[in-house]
């Protein structure tokens, strides 16, 4: 059997309360999740259920309380060097221009400067920021910043791409454009993608497989759906596909209860 690109095995993350009163909070519990090479997997779940925790574990930024992470069969220790991570928040360095931000990954790996800058220019063009090389993050719109972040992540050509609600801050039109762009880039390279989102439509439209998480605490997968929609897809058009509607109602049936549970908990807290 071929090793999965990324696999989480029995991952549990328990946080100790910072106030030191000994309270514990188990964000995720016994999560098994594996992503094959070239597979696009989305994880959906109610807000605050620990989706980002899973991604941080997969990235090696967070060490799970128990369980193991394997990257192409090798146990992960430290940062996951084969992964690229597109964060939810603003992660561009504010004192660097778009070009210098995109070049960062190659700069860190010691690629010759001229070559790295050429590659960065190429990536900026690819994400539609050809004319914005010298702009600083605060001079770009939210959508442009996301594009720059995408180029910054992909320039290192990571084998595993982790994305944490990358487009949640964008308006719906920009979002669909970006989703299609990501799909195009992915179709060309076919890397393993772990995509976190709270938007079920987005998850179905983009993925090969959708994993549904339960509400926290002790979040764990409660359902898995293979998305057998034809590719290449257009995220806007695919929503009208009868199979899309079928899948949507099947997944929503599982997700709905968890969303309500999560909502009730947040209201109580």
């Amino acid at each position, binding site marked *: 059997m071929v090793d999965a690109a990324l696999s989480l095995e029995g991952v549990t993350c328990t946080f100790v309360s910072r106030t030191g009163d000994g309270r514990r909070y188990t964000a995720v519990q016994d999560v098994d999740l594996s992503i094959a090479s070239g597979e696009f997997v989305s994880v959906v779940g109610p807000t605050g259920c620990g989706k980002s925790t899973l991604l*941080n574990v997969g*990235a090696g*930024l967070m060490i799970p309380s128990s369980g193991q992470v394997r990257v192409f069969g090798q146990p992960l220790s430290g*940062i*996951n*060097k084969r*992964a*690229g*991570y597109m*964060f939810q*928040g*603003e*992660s*561009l*360095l*504010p*004192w*660097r*221009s778009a070009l210098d931000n995109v070049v*960062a*990954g190659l*700069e*860190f*790996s010691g690629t010759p400067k001229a070559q790295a800058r050429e590659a960065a220019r190429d990536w900026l063009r690819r994400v539609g920021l050809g004319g914005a090389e010298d702009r*600083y*993050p*605060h*001079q770009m719109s939210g959508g442009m910043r996301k594009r720059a972040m995408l180029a*910054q*992540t992909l320039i*290192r050509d990571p084998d595993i791409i982790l994305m944490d609600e990358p487009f949640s801050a964008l308006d719906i039109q920009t979002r669909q454009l970006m989703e299609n762009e990501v799909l195009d880039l992915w179709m060309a390279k076919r890397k393993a993608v772990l995509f976190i989102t709270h938007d079920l439509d987005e998850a179905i439209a983009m993925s090969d497989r959708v994993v549904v998480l339960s509400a926290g605490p002790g979040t764990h997968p409660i359902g898995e759906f293979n998305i057998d929609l034809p590719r290449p897809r257009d995220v806007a058009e695919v929503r009208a596909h009868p199979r899309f509607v079928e899948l949507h109602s099947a997944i929503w049936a599982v997700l709905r209860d968890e969303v309500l549970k999560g909502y009730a908990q947040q209201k109580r807290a």
Partner: protein
Amino acid sequence: MSKSFKQGRAYLRLWQLLLLAVLLAAWWYIAKNPKLAFFFGDPVQVCVHIWDWFVGGEIYVHLWVTLIETLLSFFIGTATGLGCGLWLGLSPRAAAILDPYIKAANSMPRVILAPIFAMWFGLGIWSKVALAVTLVFFIVFFNVYQGVREVPAVLLDNARMLGANRRQLLRSVYLPSATSWVFSSLHTSVGLAFVGTVVGEYLGSAQGVGYLILQAEGTLDVNTVFAGIVVLTVFSLLLDYAVTLAEKPLMKWQPKAGETERL
């Protein structure tokens, strides 16, 4: 819109100049009384003194000394503050151990160190530099310390995911973040470098504008004291302006409120 704004500015300048003229006239009027002039000086005499200083060339060596002291203390204070701020910001244990000492050193009225520095370094420029450095150091130190600890976690995580090792993190995330805090405190730290220098000179020196004031005060020559104050004020405004010019290219990446890009 912009025309009326420009007119408004001209109007503002006019009023400011008018106020200056009124104040000078009032001063001049008071100075007609010799008893009051003994305490408040005479604006005409003050101007004559300043004129003599610059035309006679006596002032230049003193200004030069004061400037050198200010610049030296600014650079030394900034460099040490930056270094210590980075170090303590990155090693929480050292910061925890040194915390009470830093608090104590910061709350101490440091001007009182002047006599000690005079004993250690003599009456030359270095005792003034030392005093001003203690003022500049803490401003820069606290800004950098805070800056390092408040680097957004997502920037660090992102740089690490992009393959930055510890040294690269320091160079491309911590240092730029810290220096941005240094720049934001640039006006304060240059101002304090100047204050420390002049106070140091005033408390004992052989050269510098503070020394001129000290000498004049010794002979109750109030006009020279005022002349020294005027020269120092103008000089400090020039320094502040130089800082404004210097920080413009350095702060390019920072958003300004309501900034629109000119195309």
